[in-house]
């Protein structure tokens, strides 16, 4: 992936972990699914999303 504007990685990661804090595994799965859909909407570009899907799918 190409780099965009620098993200405060530690602050983001901390917020993400806090969002999951206290959730059951099923609730965390559901949260992650909603996050993916919301972020996809933010990206808003099918070419980019296809590229990201391929990137994430690599083992």
């Amino acid at each position, binding site marked *: 992936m190409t780099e965009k504007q620098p993200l405060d990685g*530690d602050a983001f*990661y901390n917020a993400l972990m806090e969002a*999951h804090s206290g959730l059951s*595994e099923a609730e965390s799965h559901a949260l992650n699914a909603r996050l993916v859909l919301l972020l996809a909407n933010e990206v808003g570009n099918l070419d980019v999303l296809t590229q990201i899907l391929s990137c994430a799918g690599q083992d």
Partner: protein
Amino acid sequence: MRYDYHQFETRTPPELGGPGQAQDCYDVAIIGAGPVGLAAAIDLASHGIASVVLDDNNVVSVGSRAICWSKRTLEIFDRLGVGQRMLDKGVTWKVGRLFHGDDAVYSFDLLPEDGHKYPAFINLQQYYVEQYLVERAQQFPDLIDLRFRNKVADHTDHGEHVTLKVQADDGAYQLDTKYVLACDGAGSPTRRRMGLSFEGQTFEEHFLIIDVEMPESPFETETPERWFWFEPSFHPGQSALLHKQPDDIYRIDLQLGPGADPKVEATEEKVVPRLKAIVGDKPFTIDWMSVYKFRCAKLDRFVHGRVIFVGDSAHVVSPFGARGGNGGIQDVDNLCWKLASVLSGKASSTLLESYDAERLHGANENILNSSRATNFMTPKSPIEALFRNEVLRLARQDAFARRLINSGRLSVPCVLEGMALQTPGAGPVTSGTAAVDAPLADGWLLEKVQGQFTLIGFGDVALPVVDCARLGIAQQHSDYTCIEDPTGLALQRYGEGIAYLFRPDGHVAASFSHPSTEMVTRALRRAQGLSPEKEAAA
């Protein structure tokens, strides 16, 4: 080669030495002769302020304990007269290398540019640091009264002074002092006596620290680095950290998980197989080991009347990031010039409020960073472990994911931008930033900007007459000293034609493109906590 512990000499304190020997009231009593208390005594002495240092012990730190000393700490220690000695003995490093399993994920360079007197970090055992500081303190026999095996049993703050009750080998005595610096560590008896709340996050994980002496390096690199593993095969499911110290001693730090029994783990029987899994058949001997848990906590205020908390007594952090000892030395650097100004009548005691504000800001930053690092290292749920592992996996290809890996955000100088003493300025080095070093024709910039208020002009800018030291860099003026900038780095870092006002702790107080006497004086008074205009003489 193991460290050779010596007992410091103890003397009968003047209070027990017969009538007329003791002083009525000391300026400063320092409780605790660890790195923070000793540095404070030397710093105060450098400003001409006398102190009594009281410690319940008479040897340096047993065990290596704090080993990673940051560039900023070395620069402060340079001003105190021990920086070069620490650099000469210490192991210099700047690269941190991260592993996931047995594969290298990536590495980071903490000081990728030249032109600095001190490196990003050195590793040096706390016992050496304390020894060097004691020996340096002994060079001020008229200003530093070191009293080993003098345990402070109680204190009473009378408002204008504090009475300490002290237990020495020769008996009990009392002394009066204008200020007390509580440098008595994480378990601070002073803090407990005062019943002050010390709140924060406790981490349940246990960690095992082992110092091993090995003639053959366990590193595969030529130069020493900081190596950190997530889930290595030699220590499944946990993290591990490796550092080199002087005298062929290596620090190995192993995460043990929350269920570990410290008594069982800190035994040769348990530790030797763990070490053999890491270093293989290379011969080693165990020098020191310790099992610990930690927390991140702080006081709400560091200044309590005439008692001022400095270092671990004021705030504690997890060790990943080297923010404990280095944070404590920044406390000393921030406090001592202010306390010296107050005691010599140049500033009012309200200046000490800025120590509270500026170092609480520093402590919050250290706690935030070390809590996040510890959280990343010790996932508390399956989902946290999942995210952590996927970050590590993505990081092998994607640069963005590398920034999310947190094995400790290593101590950097605290920036005091926007706080009360600083005047926003014109230069590229923002007000509140600690001095950025550069080589000069005559030594290093950091040697010129610390110790007293100093106005420095870089390039084509004339310095007005002001009530502080002045220095020109890469300029020619007849009424103050000027030094060449042979590499051009000083001008490159500070900007052509800019003048900077530095505080005695080397932080930028203000900067100007066209400094006048009035502008600099206003910034200077603000940095000393004084009202903008001089009050008319009564």
